[in-house]
Structures are given as structure tokens and as C-alpha cells.
């Protein structure tokens, strides 16, 4: 069973609304990734963190998303103004520093109406 905890499991928002999802990485994993999986099974990397610092993010994330991984709190990913095209499964993954293997949460399925 996955030890990466994502909430909520499902999220329904109207266009223009904020959409926030959270992720608790596996204990002891300082590296966290967010991916978006669309209905065509295409995975898109969004952003990753090491501890509280952003390592890499794509342009879309920088412009439209707000993401953080504060110490002693869940990581979060928030779309500032949801669009229909944001409807997707958002997957959080974590890993150890020295281990390349990524472990995924169950995802948050976002539907933007």
C-alpha cells in the first residue's frame, strides 16, 4: 500500500475557482514530485521539491499554480484559477535522496465544470 497520502481523492470546481490538493510524502522522503495525468494517459511533470525548496517547475506551474512543501505540514498544489483543461488526475510522488525509485500516492482527480 502506498505511504504517500493525497487528499482529497476527488475535487470538483467551477471554472475560475481555486483548486487545492495536498500530499503527505512517505516519511523520510525529502524529494517530492507532482505530475498531471490527462485522460489520454499522458503524464506531465509539474514541479518538484527537495525539502522546502523548488528544484524544477514547468512554465505553466509557475504562472498558474501555487505550490509549496512547508516543513512539518503537507505539501500542496493549488490552481489559482481553474480551467476546463485542468481536469485530470494529479499525482504526488516522493523518494529518498539516494534512491531513484519514486512512490506515488493515489492521486486527486480534479474535474473542472
Amino acid at each position, binding site marked *: 500500500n*502506498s505511504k504517500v497520502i493525497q487528499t482529497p481523492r476527488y475535487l470538483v470546481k467551477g471554472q475560475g475557482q481555486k483548486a487545492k490538493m495536498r500530499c503527505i510524502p512517505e516519511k523520510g522522503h525529502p524529494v517530492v514530485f507532482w505530475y498531471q495525468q490527462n485522460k489520454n494517459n499522458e503524464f506531465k511533470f509539474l514541479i518538484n521539491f527537495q525539502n522546502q525548496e523548488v528544484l524544477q517547475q514547468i512554465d505553466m506551474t509557475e504562472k498558474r499554480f501555487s505550490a509549496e512543501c512547508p516543513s512539518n505540514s503537507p505539501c500542496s498544489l493549488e490552481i489559482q484559477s481553474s480551467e476546463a483543461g485542468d481536469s485530470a488526475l494529479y499525482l504526488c510522488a516522493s523518494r529518498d535522496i539516494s534512491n*531513484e525509485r519514486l512512490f*506515488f500516492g493515489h492521486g486527486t482527480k480534479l474535474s473542472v465544470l
Partner: protein
Amino acid sequence: GDQVEQSPSALSLHEGTSSALRCNFTTTTRSVQWFRQNSRGSLINLFYLASGTKENGRLKSAFDSKELYSTLHIRDAQLEDSGTYFCAARNYAQGLTFGLGTRVSVFP
């Protein structure tokens, strides 16, 4: 994605039969992970390989970093093996680059 070519896109198996899935990589990758995604979207870790082969029950995976491919063999398929299987190549900056998946349906 462009870096990972996964085949076939769909596979139907009778219970008890065996088959293989394949991923070809267009660029060098240091490792590969295989996942099965269930109907609820959960990505279940199957294998992580940096080289060679690994076996877990009726599943066996191989990774050839020189020839740039990986395979996943399903032996004696069972109904619970149904799902979408993804391979993913290690991507230094972005963690993993995923294939488009193989939808496996096992029927009685």
C-alpha cells in the same frame, strides 16, 4: 511521451495465459520503473530496475540499458492483473518520463 514508446497499447488475455509488454527508450536511461494503475487511478509499484531482471510472483521484468528497452512478462494471467501498465524511464530533472500505457484486460 516521446522518450518512452510502450507497446502494445492494449492487450486481452485469457486467464492462465502469458504475454509480454515492452518499452523502447529513445534516449539513454539509467533505470526504469513499472507500474500498474487500477480503475481508481492508484499507481502500484511493480518493479524498479537499473539493470538485469527481477521477478515477483507471476511478473517478471527485464531492462537492457544498452539496447534501450525493458519488458514486463505476465505469466498465468489472473483477473486481478487487469489494469493499465506503465513503464517510466528515469529523467534526471523531472523524475520519470512515462509511456502511454498498455491496457491489459484479463477475462475468464
